[in-house]
């Protein structure tokens, strides 16, 4: 990413969208909308002081909504460009409330609440579509109960769990356990608040709360708003403390997730959704299981799949090694259902195809290997570019010309063309660049010939 940001021959237009394309190969006119960030690109240094001070917390899209970020933000820490952006949906100032804290904080004077979308024109010779894919939403498969059972997560969410810079700092704390921890934090705040309130009363009336309460109950105090509040606070206090300590005791029994189930082909190879194979998900489940085992050597993983399609260079060996050394077992078949068992443990029901019987097994966490779905914006983009999509809504190409779209001068690479892993995407990126260069060169030399 950094190389892209620094390359003298690359002009990076982030947070922008293509609106219109006219002309043809070698001579395209492209209209681009640069969306308002409310931050001036040429002034912002990416220091992040604004985000530190911004009072508005927003679910963090980069961490799959697993953590929070601020209303003024950089999509992720090493993001390029590091220019911050104000989220107009959440920002107080932009929603008519009083704030503007970031504007005061920013030393570079980069905040501009009046910024508007800008439209720019580009003249280009060739266009490369590298719009990628979307992660399939598994809540469309009711029997897997994603969102209903908190410990059922997607592979991409799980990547964030494994990441040292993710919401759990790389520890496999289960979402249900994290929810309890969040509840404890909330309760602690409440206990403290109630404690402080009691102390205030005690100071004011120079009497211990316990003593006061006894007398109050005995009717020794006259009916007064303040006394009533004091009494209510005192009466409610033990209950919160009790809940808190129960939860705290419960937390002591929590350990990181050690029994993992990976469910393959979630949304892929499935006529209800995407009939194709997404190609990379078998490999990333193996990878995630191996990393989980590296983080916590007791971790045992079961990968449920119809075929384990680990077909890239070195993947088969990786898979076998995962089985021998990283506590992975492979179970052939499609999982029928996921239900919730005791302690928020997901229970996986599947046909053990080798024993030929239906079995259920309890896990600490279930990870869904979701399909590589065509990206939503591709319809709009294809319309603007005039290129055809195939029946699965990937950009249409042919095996003999794997990066040529149906329009001359427009090329495609990566998952926008079909599901593929990183090495193949990288290779295809070079292929698309080559086709673009080839085409531009040929037309130039033709022009030169025509002139001569």
């Amino acid at each position, binding site marked *: 990413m950094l190389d892209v940001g*620094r390359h003298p021959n690359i002009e990076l237009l982030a947070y922008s969208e293509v609106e219109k394309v006219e002309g043809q190969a070698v001579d395209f006119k492209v209209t681009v909308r640069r969306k308002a960030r409310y931050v001036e690109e040429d002034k912002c240094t990416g220091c992040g002081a604004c985000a530190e001070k911004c009072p508005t917390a927003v679910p963090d899209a980069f961490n799959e909504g697993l953590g929070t970020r601020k209303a003024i933000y950089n999509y992720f820490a090493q993001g390029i460009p590091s220019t911050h952006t104000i989220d107009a949906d959440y920002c107080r100032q932009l929603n008519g409330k009083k704030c503007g804290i970031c504007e005061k904080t920013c030393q570079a004077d980069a905040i501009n609440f009046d910024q508007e979308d800008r439209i720019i024109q580009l003249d280009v010779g060739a266009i490369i579509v590298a719009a990628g894919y979307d992660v399939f939403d598994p809540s469309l498969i009711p029997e897997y109960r994603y969102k209903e059972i908190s410990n059922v997560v997607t592979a991409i969410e799980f990547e964030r769990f494994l990441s040292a810079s993710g919401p759990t700092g790389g520890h496999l704390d289960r979402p249900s356990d994290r929810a309890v921890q969040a509840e404890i934090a909330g309760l602690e705040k409440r206990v403290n608040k109630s404690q402080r309130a009691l102390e205030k009363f005690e100071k004011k009336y120079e009497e211990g709360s316990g003593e006061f309460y006894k007398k109050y109950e005995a009717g020794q105090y006259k009916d007064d708003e303040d006394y009533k509040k004091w009494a209510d606070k005192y009466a409610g206090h033990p209950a919160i403390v009790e809940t808190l300590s129960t939860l705290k005791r419960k937390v002591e029994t929590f350990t990181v997730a050690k029994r993992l189930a990976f469910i393959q082909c979630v949304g892929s190879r499935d006529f209800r959704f995407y009939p194709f194979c997404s190609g990379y998900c078998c490999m990333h489940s193996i990878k995630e299981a191996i990393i989980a085992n590296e983080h916590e050597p007791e971790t045992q993983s079961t990968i449920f799949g119809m*075929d384990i399609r680990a077909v890239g260079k*070195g993947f088969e060996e990786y898979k076998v090694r995962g089985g021998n050394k990283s506590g992975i077992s492979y179970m052939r078949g499609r999982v029928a259902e996921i239900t919730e068992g005791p302690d928020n443990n997901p229970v996986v029901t599947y046909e053990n195809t080798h024993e030929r019987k239906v079995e259920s097994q309890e896990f600490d966490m279930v990870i869904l290997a979701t399909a590589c779905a065509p990206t939503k914006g591709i319809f709009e983009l294809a319309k603007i570019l005039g290129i055809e999509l195939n029946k699965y809504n*990937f950009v249409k190409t042919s*095996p003999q010309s*794997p990066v040529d779209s149906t329009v001359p001068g427009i090329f495609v690479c990566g998952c926008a063309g079909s599901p593929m892993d990183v090495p193949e995407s990288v290779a295809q990126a070079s292929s698309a660049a080559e086709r673009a260069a080839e085409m531009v060169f040929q037309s130039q030399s033709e022009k030169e010939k025509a002139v001569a």
Partner: protein
Amino acid sequence: MPDMKDEDIRIGVFICHCGSNIAGYLDMEELSEYAEKLPHVTFVQRNLYSCSEAGISEIKKGIMEHDLNRVIVASCTPRTHEPLFRSSCAEAGLNPYLFEMVNIRDQCSWVHMKEREDGTDKAKDQIRMGVAKAALLEPQEPIMSDVQIRALVIGGGISGMTAALSLANRGYEVVLVEKEKNLGGMLNQIYKLAPTMTDASALAEEKIRAVTGHPNITLFTGSKVNAAQGFIGKYQIDIETESGIKKIDFGVILIATGASVYTPEGLYGYDGQRIITQLEMERLLKKGLDQGIKNIVMIQCVGSRNEDRPYCSRICCQTAVKNAMLIKNQIPEAKISILYRDMQMYGVENEELFRDSKAKGIRYINYDSVQPPEVESDKVRVYHALLGREMLLPADLVVLSTPLIAHEDAVEISQLLRISIDENGFFLEGHVKLRPLDFATDGIFLCGSAHYPANIREAVAQGLGAASRASIPLSQGSVVVEPIISVLANEDACIACGLCVALCPYGALEIQKTEKGEKVHVIDVACKGCGCCAAACPQKALDITHFRDRQIFAVIEAGGAEAQ
């Protein structure tokens, strides 16, 4: 260059948190306090992410405001980040070789996640060693060398032809060397191509016509590379052609030599008649099948995914499904069973073919590698792992899906060009994820089945991609080589024994006559700075810049010193 006076050395140390990757496990406060006390260190700063744009601008600001003349970043691995930090130094006006990187993430925080104190102590040791080295660093100027604007493509299969055509279409001169009499490679032996079921020979002919008619392509069939010398920009190659040896210089080389099909001698009663390979099946299909054949059994993973060949050959499942469909076209009533371990029908097109084949009645039977099928005189016995019972399948023809294997002469090419091959004999790319089409050696690129079994779609894409990679030095006309190289630091000491010349794996040394008699001479652009020569020289005449003896000894001494 004259040594800088001790008191003039001003070292800046930037310690990266790497988010929580480092800061989560080491005591950052302690590290920066420690670094401040080290000799020559005039400025210490911590960054959340030193590599972010914000981090980089902090480093540049530090250099300019504090007049730093040495910079250390204590962070992650130089493999990925050194180029970035070096160029940032350069942008701030500091010679990029006055930069030193200390890896306190991979070597400290990651491996000592649970030993905060020890990890922190180790990071201190490493920073101290880095500072010792930095004090002795010297500025270095990049070495430029011209590029011969001509590409050599070795191998005339679909990937090599695609690469050659693309480069030629961009105006570059290309020499294509094919060892067989004809171009086309594996395509010549295939009947129809999945998934489109077009004629393989039609595709081959189309490409061959384009290649032979192209004014920028010189073609040598029945030819081989015989000898090779040189380095990026200037490879001197001897090509043994039908009309004698041709000596030609090239700027870049593309390897597109493909792979061979494994012949399963001794497996499942292979006889090339009734029990054949998929490649032989292609020939039968081309000729037209004998209508008497009614029952066909295919066995997958024959000679692959085992101890000898642990890899999955990626394309044999697609080939089996394709051929099963083609058999059905010729003999609609044929009964075809495919015995498999995993059906590797990855992606959009393959899975579609797989589905269609099931609709056509092709039967798939899963077997377990510990209980492989047995081929008998007229049938195949297989334990159906999913049904849990043995099955007997009548078989007029048994087709074995064998893997693609590396060519026997791949080793020879790898030695000639000094490029690596992997444990399965395929050529080894520069980096699995980030440089799939490059070699570690500059100026040599890779595509098609020479890298790993590929289908046509993949082979074509890689051919184009390798051409793109190769076109970068060609279009720039010159290359800049890292100036970390061997130098004859003590000319008088050299006795021209030639020990280093024999040892250098890159052919970068030669003995030359000089005024002082015979001395060794380093060919700058060819030298990779590996250090073999300097280590071997009995006279200690050679040194590697940026890793001079005295620099390394200073690091070792600092390493041995106790942390205060």
